[in-house]
């Protein structure tokens, strides 16, 4: 069997942050209580000239510039997001042009709430493994929407992670992937609606927890792996509590979750959420480490992946513009500027 895996990766998180206290002040809420619920301290906010296309391009350029291969070999680009700048007109084509890889390739925009990024990864793995393409690019990016005053307003951030998927010079070899999918009305946004709606507590146990746990378990059963085999495990991060609770339920330790848990500083970047955590792990993991990644997208489904880090990872590390670089680059803004940047002021 030919091997398939990640050959490079890149992150992008916008520079602006808003603190939970700053939002709570506007609605006269208790920030301590809100922070206790989500364990998120601040969330990332795109600048007025940023959107999913710009963030996707920046993360993809980071993936390419740290890597020594030829981007002209790209046979597929998939951009998963629930906030594509155009409803009709793909983000993926803008990415292709901005990487100068037009034109003999396939491309598409994907949407599956917060797991469209991992859906693109699965598609690329399949295409590479079946030798239909030699190199694929999967991006998960979001400029997340949260209705003012909704609990989501405190947690939804923005960012992008990009993965080059191929069969040569693999830095994280794919051991297996497993998904669960059901029809689940936990979170939705109708055509033309500005903000998503959700089922509040219904988004928890039967939605996030059930799918994440079933998918993770399903993969481990299929591969015959156990929790102790993994040095790092990353789950979707709508807040910091949920992934930690899932880890506990599955029998993972705090240490196994920690490196991939980046939402405390930047919030939930929807399609980029779990994979930005994964990118942060890749920046630090050692050759030989096994990594479990499980995304969750409302509606609902989870994609799980098991990877082993190879020696080749040190060929693309260290890299200046890694996940930590963007986490460190931050400027806190006030609520007034936040509503302006988000385009809420019209």
């Amino acid at each position: 069997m030919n091997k398939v895996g990640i050959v490079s990766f890149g992150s992008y998180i916008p520079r602006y942050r808003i603190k939970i206290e700053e939002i709570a002040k506007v609605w006269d809420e208790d920030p301590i209580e809100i922070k206790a619920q989500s364990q998120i301290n601040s969330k990332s906010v795109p600048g007025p000239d940023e959107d999913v296309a710009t963030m996707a391009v920046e993360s993809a350029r980071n993936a390419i510039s740290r890597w020594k291969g030829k981007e002209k070999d790209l046979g597929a680009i998939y951009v998963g997001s629930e906030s594509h700048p155009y409803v009709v007109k793909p983000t993926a084509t803008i990415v292709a042009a901005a990487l100068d890889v037009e034109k003999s390739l396939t491309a598409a925009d994907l949407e599956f709430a917060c797991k469209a990024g991992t859906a693109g990864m699965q598609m690329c793995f399949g295409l590479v493994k079946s030798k239909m393409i030699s190199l694929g690019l999967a991006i998960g990016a979001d400029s997340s929407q949260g209705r003012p005053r909704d609990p989501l307003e405190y947690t939804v951030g923005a960012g992008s992670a990009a993965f080059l998927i191929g069969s040569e010079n693999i830095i994280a070899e794919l051991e297996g992937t497993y998904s669960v999918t059901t029809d689940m009305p936990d979170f939705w946004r109708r055509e033309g609606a500005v903000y998503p709606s959700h089922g509040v507590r219904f988004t928890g146990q039967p939605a996030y927890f059930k799918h994440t746990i079933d998918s993770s378990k399903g993969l481990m059963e299929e591969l015959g792996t156990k929790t102790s085999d993994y040095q790092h495990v990353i789950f979707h991060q709508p807040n910091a509590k949920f992934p930690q609770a899932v880890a506990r339920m599955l029998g993972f330790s705090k240490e196994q979750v920690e490196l991939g848990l980046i939402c405390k500083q930047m919030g939930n970047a929807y399609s980029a959420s779990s994979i930005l955590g994964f990118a942060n792990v890749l920046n630090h993991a050692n050759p030989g480490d096994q990594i479990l990644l499980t995304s969750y997208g409302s509606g609902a489904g989870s994609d799980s992946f098991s990877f082993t880090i190879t020696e080749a990872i040190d060929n693309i590390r260290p890299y200046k513009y890694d996940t930590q670089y963007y986490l460190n680059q931050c400027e806190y803004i006030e609520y007034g500027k936040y509503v302006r940047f988000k385009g809420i002021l019209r």
Partner: protein
Amino acid sequence: MEPPKIWREKRGKYLAMGVECSDCMIKQFPFTEKCSACGSENVKEYKLATTGKVLHFSTVTQTTDEMMGSTPYLIAIIELDDGIKVTGQIVDCNLNEAKEGMDVRMVFRVLARNGSEGLIRYGYKFAPI
């Protein structure tokens, strides 16, 4: 914002693709089919350096609707590492933080949005290193 124009200019705006003369080796921007130095038509695409220095800068507080979203913003003449000079915005930098001589790198941003239903123009800007 005219669709053919956005399409035609994407290599210049997205990639900062200029031209290098194969005869006199001079690099220039924007793209031209004839070398501006020696007139040769023997030119090939050349991608500008993606890092450089701020030579001159100022601020923009008033401009057209499609670009007002980002005002006030910094505008600069940048000398790229290959010696080519371009005009571009400095982003991720507070207005009082800009300096002549500051090192910057090219980033991909929204240049303008034609209302909420029209096209979006993307292109290069610069961020401090």
